[in-house]
C-alpha cells in the first residue's frame, strides 16, 4: 500500500491489522466528509434538483443560479449586505490582533520569568479551560451593560482578547525557546519588552498562526448572540442564518451561503495546517 509511510518501516506490523485499520479510517472518513460534500453539491443544484425525489448527493446539472439569487437577495435586504461582511471582518480582525498581542505578552513572563503569583495565575487560566462560556453568560451581560457595551462590537471583541486557550498554547510553546538566547540578549542590554518583541515573538510564529486560526474560527462563527441588537451591527453568520431559515423559496440561496461560510475557515486551515500541528505538539498539560 502506497499510503503507508515507506522508508522508516516500523517493525511489528501485521498486514491484516493494517488493512482493517485503514478500512476503519475510510468508513469514518466517509461519515465525516459526506455531509460536507452534500452541502457543496447543494450549492450548485438548480432548485428543482434540491427538491427531487429520491434526493441526490451529487449535482446533475450544476448552475451558479443559487449564487446569483443570493446576490439579488442581498441587494434587497434592509441593511446593505456589505455591512454584514464589514461587521464580521471587523470583529474577526480586531479580535485576532488584540488576542495575539495580549496573550503573547502575558505568556512570555509565565513561560520564562519567575515571580510571585505566577503558578497561581497560570492555574486559574488552566482551570478556566474547563468550563463553557454559558456558565458566565448572565454576569457577563451585566458587566457589558454596566460598561455600556451592549449593542456594540466591543461586547464580542474584548472578551475574545482574554480567551484562555490562546494564552495556554502560547505559554507552552514559549517554554521551548532556549534560555541562553534570552540571556544573551539581556547581556547585550535589551529590555524585557525589547526581548519579547524582537526575540520571543519572531521565534513563536507557528504558535501565533495557531491562535489566529483558532480565534478566526470562533469569531467568524459568532453572531453576537445576546449582545448585539441593531441590524447594522449584525454579523454575516447572523444574516446567513436568516437566509437559511427562509424556507423553500430560499433553499438555493441558503445552500450557497452555507458553502461560502464554511469554505473560508477550511481554506485557511489548509494553508496553515503544518504550523498548527507544530504548536499543538508542545501543548502538554503540565501542572
Amino acid at each position: 500500500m502506497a499510503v503507508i509511510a515507506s522508508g522508516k518501516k516500523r517493525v511489528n506490523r501485521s498486514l491484516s491489522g493494517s488493512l482493517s485499520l485503514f478500512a476503519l479510517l475510510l468508513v469514518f472518513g466517509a461519515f465525516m466528509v459526506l455531509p460536507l460534500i452534500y452541502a457543496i453539491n447543494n450549492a450548485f443544484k438548480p432548485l428543482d434538483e434540491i427538491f427531487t425525489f429520491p434526493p441526490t448527493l451529487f449535482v446533475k446539472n450544476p448552475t451558479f443560479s443559487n449564487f446569483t439569487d443570493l446576490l439579488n437577495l442581498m441587494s434587497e435586504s434592509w441593511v446593505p449586505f456589505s455591512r454584514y461582511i464589514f461587521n464580521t471582518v471587523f470583529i474577526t480582525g480586531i479580535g485576532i490582533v488584540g488576542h495575539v498581542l495580549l496573550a503573547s505578552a502575558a505568556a512570555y513572563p509565565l513561560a520564562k520569568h519567575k515571580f510571585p503569583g505566577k503558578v497561581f495565575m497560570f492555574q486559574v487560566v488552566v482551570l478556566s479551560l474547563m468550563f463553557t462560556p454559558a456558565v458566565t453568560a448572565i454576569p457577563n451581560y451585566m458587566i457589558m451593560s454596566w460598561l455600556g457595551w451592549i449593542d456594540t462590537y466591543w461586547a464580542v471583541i474584548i472578551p475574545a482578547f482574554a480567551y484562555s486557550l490562546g494564552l495556554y498554547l502560547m505559554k507552552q510553546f514559549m517554554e521551548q525557546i532556549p534560555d541562553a538566547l534570552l540571556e544573551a540578549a539581556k547581556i547585550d542590554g535589551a529590555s524585557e519588552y525589547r526581548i519579547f518583541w524582537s526575540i520571543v515573538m519572531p521565534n513563536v510564529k507557528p504558535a501565533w498562526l495557531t491562535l489566529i486560526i483558532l480565534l478566526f474560527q470562533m469569531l467568524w462563527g459568532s453572531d453576537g448572540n445576546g449582545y448585539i441588537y441593531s441590524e447594522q451591527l449584525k454579523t454575516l453568520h447572523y444574516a446567513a442564518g436568516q437566509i437559511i431559515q427562509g424556507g423553500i423559496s430560499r433553499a438555493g440561496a441558503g445552500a450557497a451561503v452555507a458553502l461560502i461560510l464554511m469554505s473560508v475557515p477550511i481554506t485557511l486551515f489548509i494553508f496553515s495546517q503544518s504550523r498548527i500541528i507544530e504548536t499543538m505538539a508542545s501543548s502538554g498539560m503540565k501542572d
Partner: protein
Amino acid sequence: MGMKSWWSWKLQEMKASKHSYVLLAPYMLLFIMFTVIPVVISIILSFTYFNMLEFPRFIGWQNYTRLFLEDDVFLIAIKNTLLFAIITGPISYIACFVFAWIINELTPKWRAFMTLIFYAPSISGNVYFIWLMIFSGDRYGIANGLLIKWGFLLEPIQWLKTEAYIMPILILVQLWLSLGTGFLAFIAGLQTVDRTLYEAGAVDGIKNRWQELWYITLPSMRPQLMFGAVIQLTTSFAVADVSIALAGFPSVNYAAETVVTHLIDFGTTRFEMGYASAIATVLFMIMVGTNLLVQKLLRRVGE
C-alpha cells in the same frame, strides 16, 4: 523568618519582577473582568432572587432545592446532559485518538489530507444545519428519501419532532462535530514521540502494535492526552447550540433539553437570574469535578 521579613522579601521580589507584571496586566485585567468576576458573581447570585429589575434578594439555598426537588425539566436536562457526556465524551475522545493514531502511519501528504477530512466538520463555522436538511421531515430530506426509496419506510418520518429520535440524532451530530482541537493535539503529540523508543521496544520484546501502543505511545503522549480530555469533556457537557439549531427551543416535550439550554431558558426568556445562576453554578461544579477526576485517571495510563 518572621512574618514581616517574609513580606518585605516578597515585596522586593515583586518589585524586581515589575516588567513581568506589566506584560501580564492587560490580559489578566480582561481575564479577571470577563471570566473570574463573572464566575464569582454567578455563585453569589445563585443564592438570591433576581429579576434584573429589583435589587437581588438573598434567599439561601432555595434556588438549589427548587432545582433538584421541584424542577422536573431540570431533571430531564441533567439526564440528557449526562447521556451526552457519557456517550459523546469517551467516544469522541477515543475516536480522536484512534483516528490520529492511524493517520500518523500515513505518508505526509495523505496525513495532511486525512487530517483535513476529519477536522473539517468542526471548523466549518457551525455548518450543522446541513443535518437539518439531512433529517428534514419531508421526503426531500436525505434520510427520509433514501429510506423510502429503499423500501424501509412508506411515509416520511418527522425525525426532529419525534421524541425517540431526537437524542440519538443530536448525539450523532455532536460526534460528527467533535474531532476538533483535541484531535489536532493528538496528531501533533504522535509526531513528537521519540522514534528510538520503538526500536528499543522491539528489542525488549514488544510483539505487536497494540503492545507498542499501550507501553510506548500512550505514556509518551500523556500531556496531550490530558489536554484532549479537558477539551473533550468540556464540550460534551456544554451541548446547547446543536440542540437549539436542530431540535428547536424548546424541543418537543423537552426531549433535547440540556443543562445549558435550561440555563438559557431561565436566563434570557424568563429573566429568573438567580435561578439561572444556580444552574450555571451546578454546571460549573460538574465540569471542574469530572475534569479533575479524569486527569487523575489519566495519570495512570501505561503504568
